[in-house]
């Protein structure tokens, strides 16, 4: 409930000062990953889970964000996003 006014506000409000310092790995696809993932949560969720998920796991995670959590990530951008997450934060 009460999401309507939150939407938009969160985008313009400065986030937690320290959250701003979280940066994802510099690599192809970083900007898109930061934009898609930070809509709903801080980016530290990704390094927090580094080394745990393989490609299939990251793909399931991204699909959960879209199908269950409602993240508006275009289907066409999913493969590149999964590539980025797997290459930089995937299980070795």
């Amino acid at each position, binding site marked *: 409930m009460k999401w309507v006014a939150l939407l938009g506000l*969160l985008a313009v409000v400065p986030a*937690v000062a320290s959250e701003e310092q979280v940066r994802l790995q510099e690599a192809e696809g970083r900007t898109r990953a930061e934009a898609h993932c930070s809509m*709903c949560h801080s980016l530290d969720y990704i390094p927090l889970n580094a080394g745990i*998920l393989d490609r299939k796991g990251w793909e399931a995670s991204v699909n959960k964000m879209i199908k269950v959590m409602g993240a508006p990530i275009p289907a066409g951008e999913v493969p590149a996003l999964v590539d980025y997450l797997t290459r930089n934060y995937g299980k070795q």
Partner: protein
Amino acid sequence: MDRRTFLWTSGLGAFVAAGPSFAEVPGQPAGLGEGARASAVLEALPGKRALIKRSYRPPNFETPLEVFRDTITPNDAFFVRYHLAGIPDPDPAQWRLSLGGAAAGKSLSLSLADLQSGFEQVELPAVCLCSGNRRGLSSPHVAGVQWGYGAMGNARWGGVRLRDLLAKVAPAAEAMEVLFDGADSPVLERTPDYVKSLPLWKALDENTLLAFTMNGEPLPRWNGAPVRLVVPGWTATYWVKHLDSIRVETQPLKNFWMASAYRIPKGKFPVVDRFLTQETETTTPITEIIVNSLLTSPLEGQRLAPGDPLLVEGIAWDGGFGIASVDVSTDGGVHWSRAELAPELGRFSFRGFRQVFPGLSAGRHVVMARASNRAGTTQTLDLIFNPAGYHNNVVQRIAVDIV
């Protein structure tokens, strides 16, 4: 949206004013993954002391180990756990709780003053423990917030009994579950709102409370101000914060947070309480906390001189049967002896234990503690693996070098 939600949301910059107090986190459990250890920092949310940051938004902050030397967890050190990033700071004077639902004979709207004056006031010490506490120690590691030992706390919760409120709305004979919704909210419309349910019998338990005080103070914002549900014995997923709606229903709640999340494989864990209306062929909702303990002394990697006494100390807890005994070992589990238990504050509370071993021989000693409860269950030596990393009650192994 109410005005207070707006104020808080636009006031996120308050974090900046508070000034982050960064520090690397000392003494993190060896079993945590590299990502979890590398991304942890000690940082203070407004009104809190520095805690172990797992994520900023939504805020997930863990209580450091040394805090658990006390049986009661101070409010400013109490862990913080949210699923959704829209966190309200309701004005207690404006707050209203609505009660109703398809199986309620009538509807009601109550203020905080109504709760404080119209019902018997009770206080109860109880452990609030995240289902995923110690998830970060799962082997193999599983995705999710990588909690170490501190996604838990023990407080004296003050408020009113839920059953006294439910009596006022006259639940019908066909009432099945009671649903709880709080004022926290998702960023996107499509994200499932955090609504949880309890079976009617648990909602009517005399220990299930609506709390508005915690250790004698109003609830901190980060722990559910002004009113939260307290479900002693059951994991914190049911302890809905910023509670503003209670509905008595005739059907099981089928949302993401009940039907998909917070479920465990059936038959794997020594649990007694069942949530039958939510069970499937293979999985069941997590219910009561299983017996567990935490060593606060010695610390991992601690060194002692020969002849120094070794203090083995910690806390034990379970889902409300009460702690019967804690056995401790200094030789990796070959020999066990019974620790001294501190007086019991209540059967839902942490209970202290200690034993002093005088002058151990030089070399490495592996210290362990294994709690048992009055239902006859004890901690496991080997992880009971499950995909969400719940119910980790593996006996700790803390190596101490005497040199």
